[in-house]
């Protein structure tokens, strides 16, 4: 059985159905990428896993336990942390406070604490007392990733972390991923940037219109197959 798994996951916003039976499996310590165009259902998938959208109990399984009906705070306590799309830093909090809020209400034991996050992203140490939202987009993204790591998650979900950032900044941020993997966390990366996704992932799922249209190891997927799964045309 996989570490984190969705089974025939469906999700709707009112009358609009966004996911149609999505099956995703993540093994412990693995990194998977979920790629797809705008509106493919990638973010909805993450919103379902994190409990922002509620599901049937058995539609999401973590470590063998059904967690489909759990609330976001319960999901975090299970060890699944999210880097939300658009970063969503708290404007009233400084950089350091944004990081500290990531482990609110619990003693998260493990590699990640303020010091190790500052080692991972040294620029944040200098800006620790600035308001989180006063930073550049790339630095804000580092805070958002650090904030999620502060809970010492067993699974890290990253939603569109390259969106709106310059290529050189994206490279810097992804340069931190090997160390995050070393900490033992499994990672789910949702990306529109296919090149970046293929580089970082052990396996890739391609989604289109709320369904998984292709999955496999990056080396096994041809450019045409990805193109076809991404856009629906060969």
């Amino acid at each position, binding site marked *: 059985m996989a570490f984190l798994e969705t089974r025939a996951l469906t999700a709707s916003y009112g009358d609009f159905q966004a996911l149609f039976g999505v099956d995703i499996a993540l093994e412990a310590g693995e990194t998977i990428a979920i790629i797809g165009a705008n509106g493919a259902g990638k973010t909805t998938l993450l919103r379902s896993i994190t*409990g922002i959208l509620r599901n049937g109990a058995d539609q999401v399984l973590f470590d063998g336990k059904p967690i489909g009906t759990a609330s*976001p705070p319960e999901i975090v306590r299970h060890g699944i942390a999210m880097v*939300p799309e658009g970063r*969503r830093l*708290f404007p009233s909090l400084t950089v350091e406070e944004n990081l500290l*809020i990531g*482990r609110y209400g619990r003693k998260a034991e493990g590699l990640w604490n303020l010091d190790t996050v500052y080692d991972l992203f040294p620029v944040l140490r200098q800006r620790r007392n600035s308001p989180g939202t006063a930073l550049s987009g790339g630095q804000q993204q580092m805070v958002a990733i650090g904030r999620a790591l502060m809970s010492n998650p067993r699974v890290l979900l990253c939603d569109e972390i390259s969106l709106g950032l310059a290529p050189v900044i994206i490279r810097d941020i992804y340069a931190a991923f090997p160390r995050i993997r070393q900490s033992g966390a499994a990672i789910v990366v949702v990306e529109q940037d296919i090149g970046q996704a293929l580089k970082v992932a052990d396996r890739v799922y391609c989604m289109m219109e709320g369904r998984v249209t292709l999955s496999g190891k990056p080396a096994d997927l041809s450019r045409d197959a990805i193109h076809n799964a991404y856009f629906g045309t060969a």
Partner: protein
Amino acid sequence: MIWIDTIIQGILLGGLYALFAAGLSLVFGIMRLVNLAHGDLIVLGAFLILVLVTALGLNPFLATLVAIPLMFALGWGLQLVILNRTLGDDILPPLLVTFGLSIVIQNGLLEGFSADSQRISAGALETASIPLGPVTVGVMPLLTFLSALAVIVALNQLFYRTSLGRAFRATSDDPVTAGLMGIEPNRIFAVATGIAFVVVTIAALYLGTRANFDPTIGPARLIYAFEAVIIGGLGSLWGTLAGGIIIGVAQTVGAAINPEWQILAGHVAFLVVLAVRPRGLFPKGL
């Protein structure tokens, strides 16, 4: 000399209004909930202290210490069971529900205590005074002002120095993302309202010991509280103290000119500030 005395009395009175307002400011700052029953809750707190004083023979300050955990629990439960259900994009439900709560509290108190004026006796402290430079100030007004300062310092410490305070600010910014951090917004809101009720209880002590009160005076206290919050700038606790002082000074100066002008002068000061600085003197997010 009479004017210095008048202004100092006004500043001390401002402490009382800041105490009325701090709880309102706290709840609005964290959950954008305008609690129309705030004044009635202060009166309810005063009746609770009165009951503890008369039934158990406690000193009013000791009775307040007993009332504080009871009021915290009441605020916590009220938020968790009722007020959390009213929060959302629509601002009307919390207004309607707290307006209803205001009516329920007033009528409940009328049933239980009749419309008679009440007073909590603070004994010799009521008339005690101490010289303060060129003027003499009453001990109770001075205690009121110092309590307001202490409450505002304590709330600021709570907000900016503790992990609970971080959770308050984060939840106020963005409850959905706060949930992704493991914060339960509904519980955070319940704790915030509980703390606001602690402040309400402290305000109730001074409301009840400084003047007569009866079940119907809550809404007028709500107006002073509103004015102090809005003068200060929404969400700023120090601004709330400044707002209270402006109303207090305006009232005592107005009364010194003509006793009939006391209440009016406070409202006029509010309107003037609103005309000049519509967002208040110190607008900021909490």
